[in-house]
C-alpha cells in the first residue's frame, strides 16, 4: 500500500514538473532574453540603469534584460572567454582596449544602419572616433567616460616665485616651471619637492606614454589596407618617449619613485606637496578636496600644456556595444534606442555621473557639456575646455597586449634608466610587429 502511494506521488510530481517545464518553455519562447554585462558600480548610476531597464521591460513585455555585473578588471577576460566559448552576452560595456580587441576579432556588431545620423552628430569628436571603425562603420554608442588635465599647487607656485594664476601653456614653460618647483625644501641635500608626476603604474599607464608621443606628432600604429602597422620606431615616437624619460633622467623634475605611482599615489604626493604639478583624471578633483581639506584655495586645475609639436588632450568615453554573436541584435538595439531617447535616463545619468564623482562620469554629448558648463565649478572648467579636442589612444587590437605584456614594464625601465629609449622603443616596435604578424 505504502509502495503504491509513493509511486503514485512520484508520478504526480513528475507530471506536474513536465507540465511546468512545458509552460515555462512556451513562456521562454515568447520572451526574448537579452544578456547585458556591464561594469557600472556607482549606486546612483546603477539606480538609473535599473530604472531604465524596468521601464523598458514594462513597455516591451516580450523583452527581458538580464544584467550581469562585472568590474573593469574582470570584464575583459570574462567577455573574451565568453566570446570564444560561444556564450557571449548580447550587450556589453567596453573601454578602449576591450573595444579594440573585440573589434579586431570581429566580435562587435555593425550598427551603421541602426544609429541615426542625428544621434551620431550629437556626440563629441573623441566619442565619434571611438565608435567609428577603421572602415568607417559605426559599432557602438558612447556612454560615460573621462578626460585628464593638469593639476597644480598654487601655494607652491607662489613659493617658487611663479604666478599662481598662470599655469604653464607651452612645453617650454612647463619645463621651466617644473625646474623652478623642484627643490630641497629642508636643506638636507635631498630633493623633496618635485615639479611634475603622472601615474606610471596606473591601469591605463600606457595612455600617458601615448600622450607624450602624440605631443611630438607620433602616429604609433596605423591602419592601412586592412592591416595594422607599427610606427613605434618613427622619429616622432622616439622623440616623445625621450621627452617623457628626460623628465626623470635628465631634468630630474620627476621623482624616480614615479614608477610606483598609480593615480592615488600621485594624488597623495600632490596633496602632501611632494609633487607640485600632476596630470590626472577629472574624478581626482574630488579626491584632492577630500584628502587635503586644508588645501582649499591652494590648488587649481588647467588645460594640459601643449606638446613641442602638438596639442594633445586625453579623453574618451567608454561604449555600449552589441556583440556580433547576439541572436537578438534588433531587440538589444531597441533597448539602447529607448535608453538614448529617454531624456530622464540621459539627464539622470548626467546627474548620477555628477561629473567627477567616484566614477568620473562625463557623457560625451554636446548637451551634457552645455549642462556641465552651466552647473559645475571652476576646477572642472579646464576639463570641459579640453573635451572638443581630446584624442583617443590607438585602437589597434594588439596595443593592449603589447602594453600589458611588455610596454608598461619597458616604460618603467626606460624611466629608471636601466634600458635606453632607443633600445626600449625598438624592442617594443619589434614586439608590436610580431603581434601584427608584420
Amino acid at each position: 500500500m505504502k509502495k503504491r502511494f509513493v509511486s503514485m506521488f512520484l508520478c504526480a510530481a513528475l507530471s506536474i514538473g513536465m507540465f511546468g517545464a512545458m509552460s515555462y518553455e512556451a513562456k521562454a519562447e515568447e520572451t526574448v532574453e537579452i544578456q547585458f554585462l556591464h561594469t557600472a558600480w556607482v549606486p546612483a548610476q546603477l539606480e538609473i540603469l535599473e530604472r531604465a531597464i524596468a521601464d523598458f521591460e514594462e513597455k516591451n513585455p516580450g523583452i527581458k534584460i538580464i544584467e550581469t555585473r562585472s568590474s573593469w578588471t574582470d570584464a575583459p577576460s570574462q567577455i573574451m572567454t565568453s566570446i570564444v566559448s560561444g556564450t557571449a552576452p548580447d550587450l556589453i560595456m567596453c573601454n578602449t582596449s576591450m573595444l579594440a580587441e573585440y573589434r579586431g576579432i570581429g566580435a562587435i556588431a555593425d550598427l551603421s544602419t541602426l544609429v541615426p545620423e542625428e544621434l551620431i552628430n550629437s556626440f563629441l569628436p573623441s566619442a565619434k572616433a571611438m565608435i567609428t571603425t577603421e572602415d568607417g562603420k559605426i559599432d557602438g554608442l558612447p556612454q560615460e567616460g573621462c578626460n585628464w588635465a593638469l593639476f597644480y599647487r598654487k601655494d607652491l607656485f607662489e613659493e617658487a616665485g611663479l604666478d599662481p594664476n598662470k599655469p604653464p601653456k607651452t612645453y617650454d614653460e612647463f619645463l621651466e616651471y617644473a625646474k623652478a618647483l623642484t627643490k630641497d625644501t629642508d636643506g638636507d641635500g635631498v630633493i623633496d619637492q618635485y615639479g611634475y608626476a603622472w601615474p606610471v603604474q596606473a591601469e591605463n599607464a600606457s595612455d600617458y606614454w601615448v600622450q607624450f608621443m602624440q605631443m611630438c606628432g607620433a602616429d604609433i600604429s596605423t591602419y592601412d589596407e586592412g592591416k595594422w602597422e607599427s610606427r613605434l620606431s618613427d622619429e616622432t615616437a622616439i622623440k616623445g618617449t625621450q621627452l617623457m624619460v628626460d623628465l626623470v633622467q635628465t631634468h630630474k623634475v620627476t621623482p624616480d619613485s614615479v614608477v610606483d605611482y598609480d593615480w592615488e599615489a600621485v594624488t597623495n604626493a600632490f596633496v602632501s606637496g611632494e609633487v607640485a604639478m600632476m596630470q590626472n583624471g577629472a574624478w581626482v578633483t574630488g579626491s584632492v578636496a577630500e584628502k587635503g581639506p586644508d588645501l582649499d584655495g591652494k590648488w587649481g586645475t588647467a588645460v594640459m600644456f601643449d606638446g613641442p609639436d602638438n596639442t594633445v588632450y586625453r579623453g574618451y568615453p567608454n561604449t555600449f556595444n552589441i556583440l556580433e554573436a547576439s541572436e537578438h541584435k534588433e531587440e538589444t538595439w531597441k533597448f539602447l534606442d529607448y535608453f538614448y531617447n529617454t531624456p530622464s535616463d540621459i539627464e539622470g545619468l548626467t546627474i548620477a555621473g555628477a561629473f567627477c564623482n567616484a566614477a568620473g562620469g562625463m557623457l560625451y554629448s554636446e548637451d551634457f557639456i552645455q549642462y556641465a558648463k552651466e552647473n559645475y565649478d571652476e576646477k572642472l572648467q579646464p576639463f570641459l575646455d579640453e573635451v572638443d579636442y581630446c584624442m583617443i589612444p590607438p585602437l589597434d587590437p594588439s596595443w593592449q597586449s603589447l602594453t600589458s605584456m611588455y610596454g608598461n614594464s619597458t616604460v618603467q625601465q626606460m624611466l629608471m634608466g636601466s634600458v635606453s629609449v632607443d633600445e626600449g622603443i625598438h624592442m617594443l616596435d619589434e614586439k608590436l610587429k610580431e603581434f601584427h604578424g608584420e
Partner: protein
Amino acid sequence: MKKRIKTKIKTTATPYLFLFPCAALILVILIYPVLSGIINSFYNESLIRPVQPEFVGLDNYKSLLTDSMFLDALRRSVLWTLVILVFELFFGLLFAVLLNKDIYCKKLFRCLVLIPWIIPNAIAGIIWKWFLNESFGMMNYILKSIGIISHNLSWLSDEKLAAVSVVMVIIWKSIPFVAITLLAGIQAIPGDLYEAAKVDGARGSQCFRFVTIPMLKSIMLITSILTSIWNFNQLEIIQVVTKGGPGEATLSLPVYIYRLFMQTFQTSYASAAAVIMMLVLIVPCIVYVKKLLKE
C-alpha cells in the same frame, strides 16, 4: 554461493562508489583542465587573432627557451623560492623553539604568530604596499626614527629593493605555517630523549643540535616541500604589491603566465609556460610523495 558473491561485489564496490563523486569532481576541475592545457600548448591559439588554431608541435616550447622574459622570470622564481625557504625555516624554527618554552602568555603568542598566515594574500599585499610606501610608509618612518636610515628608501620603486620587499613579504607570510608545524614536531619529541642526552652531559645547544634537529628532519622536509610549492606559485602578493615591476624586477613566473593568459590572451603560449612551470614543480612533488609513501 550466489549470495556470497553478491556480498563480495557489494563490499568491493561500495568504497569506489563513495569515492566516485570526489574522483569525478577532480577529473572535471583538475585533470581535464591540465590535460586541455597540455594539448593547447602544442597549438598556436591566441584569442585576439581571429584564425583557426594550428598544431605547431614544440614551437611554443622552443620560443619559450629563447624568450629572455620567460627565462628571467623562471630564474627569479627558483632563486626566490630558495631564499625564502632558508629564511622561513630559520625564523620558523626560531619561533617554534620560543613558543615551546614556558614563556609568559604562551597561548596568546601562539595565536599572534598565526596572524600573517590568516590574513588573505591580497589584503596582506595591500597592507605591505602602504607599509613600504616611500613617502608615507611606516617602514621608512620606523627605520628613520631608530636612526638606521637618514633618507627614505624606495622600497617599491628601486629594482633591487622591490625584489627584496616582495621576498620579505612572502617570508613574513610563510613563517607562521613553518613555525606552527615545527612546534607540533617539537612537542612530539619524547622527553626521554632530552633526559638521556642530559644524563650524557649534553648542554642545551647540544640537545638542540643532536636531538631536536634530527627529530625534526622529516617534518622539516615535508614543510619545506609544501611551502616551496606554495611560494613558487605565489601570484596575489606580487600582483598587489608591485605588479611585477618596477620594470621586470619582480616579474615571477606566475605573474608572467598571468599576463600572457589573462591580459594578452596568448593562450597556447601561456599554456606552454604553465606546463614548464608544472614540470619544475613536479620535482619537489615527487620527493614529497616518495617521503609520504616511505612513512
